[in-house]
């Protein structure tokens, strides 16, 4: 193993972040200080936490309380390797999910004299760069500092080694997952044929839903405490699972069982080596594996006359809408647009079903239902509107060179945003109504609100998406400028509140939201009507703005 090669490969991986961070490409100057800011910050924070906890411990005079504190800190040390393993696994997996959308992914330069061992090791270590490494630094510096106050320097040293080994173990597991996932996807494409597109789409959705359910279950207030408690307790029970052996090393050390400490240490090292060996072998076998082409159609070409044409769309507008539909169901990076609405309904749904947080009180139930019915469709409209132009990427040259007018462009893109958001709203709405079982008038009012919000916020965000489009594709499609997103997200929030305010007034006047004064009652019908009028005015004004922006956009084709 050439360690210099490993370091060089890791360095390349770090440098790949330059493009993602949007640094200037001409006259580029490295500012190393920013690279290490995250790690320096984590170290300082860890030291501060350590000093804080240590000072509290020193300040406690009651011996019984001191013992309790001491025992608590020791059991936390014991569960740290398994906790770090879980969090590193989640963070490195998240990193891999993000990388799926990167166009210029890091391919192993197989024509260079680099072995698969070197490549695998570099890839495994590079997986940890960023937040996983910052978390490790934070935990390690906090443990080291606290140990000085506790007088547990040997245990702290062993714990820090166990943390590093756990993180490496997690990253190696992620590396194996990455290779297998690429191979599995290839096998799925091959076996499912024409259905591969839909299998991939639904598979990605299911994966994301499961991933976020697990993540929320672990990270919710009670969930994380339960996790620490269960890790510390369960470690002893499932001692035969290799992933907890590092925790067992610490448990044996604390109990003074030095033979067991040695056995579990050796077993852990052996397990890490075996896992790394598996990763190397898989990389050797599938590292350069290219998934087969997805064959969507085969046979006689029969152009569709089109349902959209019957709805009044020209052939150009209908073609753009059909193309966009394919983009959002086939492009992996665009599938992420579904995550935000999913997250918005997952938390309330998990609360309803008792997976996340405590039981839902009746007052909160109405609020959760409103979130499920209003937020997914509106969020979808905002996100789609913002990225619907930028998602064209560098293929936008075709738009610039085609006879497309500003009116046609805005019409088809706006229609797409509305239709797609409607579908999301309907799916989420039906789920919400089935779970929460609201009265029909409330359900209808919220659905109408959701529709008008989609129209209004879709127009606002489309105008912004045209103005702030970013067609950069490598290494990751940017689609829209971050400042545009920030400004228009805030604007959308303000406008959404303005549109929704008549319903809030209705809730206040009807006494659903308690206020100290008595106000004349506003009926639900009147509130919804006023809200719809406000929304339509917003939609009209911002549609005109979108038309103006599109006119300028098509004239300034600096490609």
């Amino acid at each position, binding site marked *: 193993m050439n360690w210099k090669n490993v370091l060089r490969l890791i360095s390349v991986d770090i440098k790949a972040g330059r493009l993602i961070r949007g640094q200037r490409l001409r006259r580029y100057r490295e500012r190393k200080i920013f690279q290490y800011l995250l790690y320096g910050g984590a170290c300082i924070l860890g030291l501060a936490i350590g000093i804080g906890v240590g000072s509290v411990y020193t300040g406690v005079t009651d011996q019984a309380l001191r013992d309790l504190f001491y025992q608590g800190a020791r059991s936390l040390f014991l569960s740290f390797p398994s906790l770090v393993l879980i969090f590193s696994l989640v963070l490195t997996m998240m990193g891999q999910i993000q990388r799926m959308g990167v166009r210029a992914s890091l391919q192993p330069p197989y024509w260079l004299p680099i072995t698969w061992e070197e490549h695998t090791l570099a890839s495994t270590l590079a997986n940890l760069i960023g937040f996983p490494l910052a978390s490790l630094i934070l935990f390690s510096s906090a443990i080291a500092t606290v140990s000085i106050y506790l007088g547990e320097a040997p245990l702290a040293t062993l714990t820090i080694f166990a943390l590093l080994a756990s993180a490496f173990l997690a990253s190696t597991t992620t590396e194996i997952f990455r290779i297998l996932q690429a191979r599995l996807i290839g096998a799925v494409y091959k076996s499912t044929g024409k259905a591969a597109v839909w299998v991939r789409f639904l598979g990605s959705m299911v994966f994301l839903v499961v991933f976020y359910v697990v993540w929320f279950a672990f990270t919710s207030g009670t969930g994380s405490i339960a996790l620490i408690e269960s890790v510390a307790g369960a470690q002893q029970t499932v001692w035969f699972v290799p992933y907890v052996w590092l925790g067992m090393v610490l448990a044996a050390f604390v109990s003074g069982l030095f033979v067991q400490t040695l056995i579990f240490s050796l077993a852990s090292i052996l397990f890490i080596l075996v896992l790394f060996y598996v990763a190397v072998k898989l990389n050797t076998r599938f590292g350069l594996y290219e998934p087969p082409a997805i064959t969507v159609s085969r046979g006689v*070409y029969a152009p569709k006359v089109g349902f959209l044409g019957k709805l009044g769309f020209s052939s150009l507008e209908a073609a753009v809408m059909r193309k966009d539909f394919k983009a959002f169901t086939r492009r992996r990076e665009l599938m992420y647009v579904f995550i935000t609405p999913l997250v918005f309904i997952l938390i309330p749904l998990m609360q309803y079903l008792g997976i996340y947080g405590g039981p839902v009180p009746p007052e909160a139930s109405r609020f959760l239902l409103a979130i499920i019915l209003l937020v997914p469709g509106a969020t979808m409209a905002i996100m789609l509107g913002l990225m619907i132009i930028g998602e064209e990427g560098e293929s936008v040259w075709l738009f610039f060179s085609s006879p497309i007018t500003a009116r046609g462009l805005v019409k088809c893109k706006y229609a797409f945003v509305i239709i797609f958001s409607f579908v999301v709203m309907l799916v989420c709405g039906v789920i919400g109504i089935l779970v929460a079982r609201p009265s029909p008038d409330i359900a209808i009012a919220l659905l109408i609100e959701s529709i008008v919000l989609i129209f209004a916020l879709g127009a606002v965000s489309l105008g912004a998406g045209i103005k702030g489009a970013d067609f950069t594709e490598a290494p990751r499609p940017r689609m829209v400028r971050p400042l545009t997103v920030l400004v228009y997200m805030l604007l959308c929030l303000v406008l959404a509140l303005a549109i929704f305010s008549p319903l809030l007034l209705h809730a206040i006047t009807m006494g659903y939201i308690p206020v100290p004064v008595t106000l004349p009652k506003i009926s639900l019908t009147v509130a919804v009507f006023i809200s719809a009028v406000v929304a339509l005015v917003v939609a009209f004004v911002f549609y005109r703005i979108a038309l103006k922006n599109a006119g300028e956009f098509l004239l300034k*084709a600096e490609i």
Partner: protein
Amino acid sequence: MVSTGEPAVKLRNVAKRYVDIVAVDYIDLDVKHGEILGLLGPNGSGKSTTLKIILGLIKPDSGSVNVLGINAEDDPVAVKRQVGYVPETPRLYEFLTGLEYLDFVGDIYGITVSEKKARIEEYLEALELEEREGDMISSYSQGMKQKTALISVFLHKPKLLLLDEPLSGLDPRSARIVKDLLRELKSQGVTTILSTHILEIAQAMCDRIAIMYEGRLLALGNMKELRQKARLPGSDLEDIFLKLTGTEDVREVVEALLK
């Protein structure tokens, strides 16, 4: 309406500047109907910018652009309806299949369903893409992507073709088909402006050649006129090009590299 005798493309005093770079430096250019004009020049000489100005993709800082009787600045959409353009590196929608892409482009130009079907099938067969028409473009080789981009510009039967390195990545058979197709289209009155670095192709195919250098139009004419201008009787386009662009020190450079 296009008046008789009026050139297909007429550039007058056209200039374009990018902050500290002069891309196009006040050029005048007339391209006749049914002519194949070769646009040559070293990298960064302003060829691609000129093509984009003609199409109305880039607004010039000064001058006038008249394409097929239409002022490109006043009505760029009308110009685009009549023109077929292939950029130097055509980025296609990689998530579409070749067939879906061509279907999409056909719809963009409003081609009727029956015409679209017939033309797409003809071109796919001619350029040997029919076996892969149902595969996603992301799995295509560079040459296959180039073929797809080329087919997409022929679909709507444009009156003017603006082709930036059209033969790059094509296999010999497909390159020959495209060249013959361009000659056939010329006989039907289609005008082509062809930007290329392959001088043999330019010499063999083009009626006239325009040589650009640092945004300026150094020379314009047929081979005989270019030889006269360069004072290189009997020489080929490569020698003329190197002499006119002041880059004829090739031999010295090679010798220096071999030392």
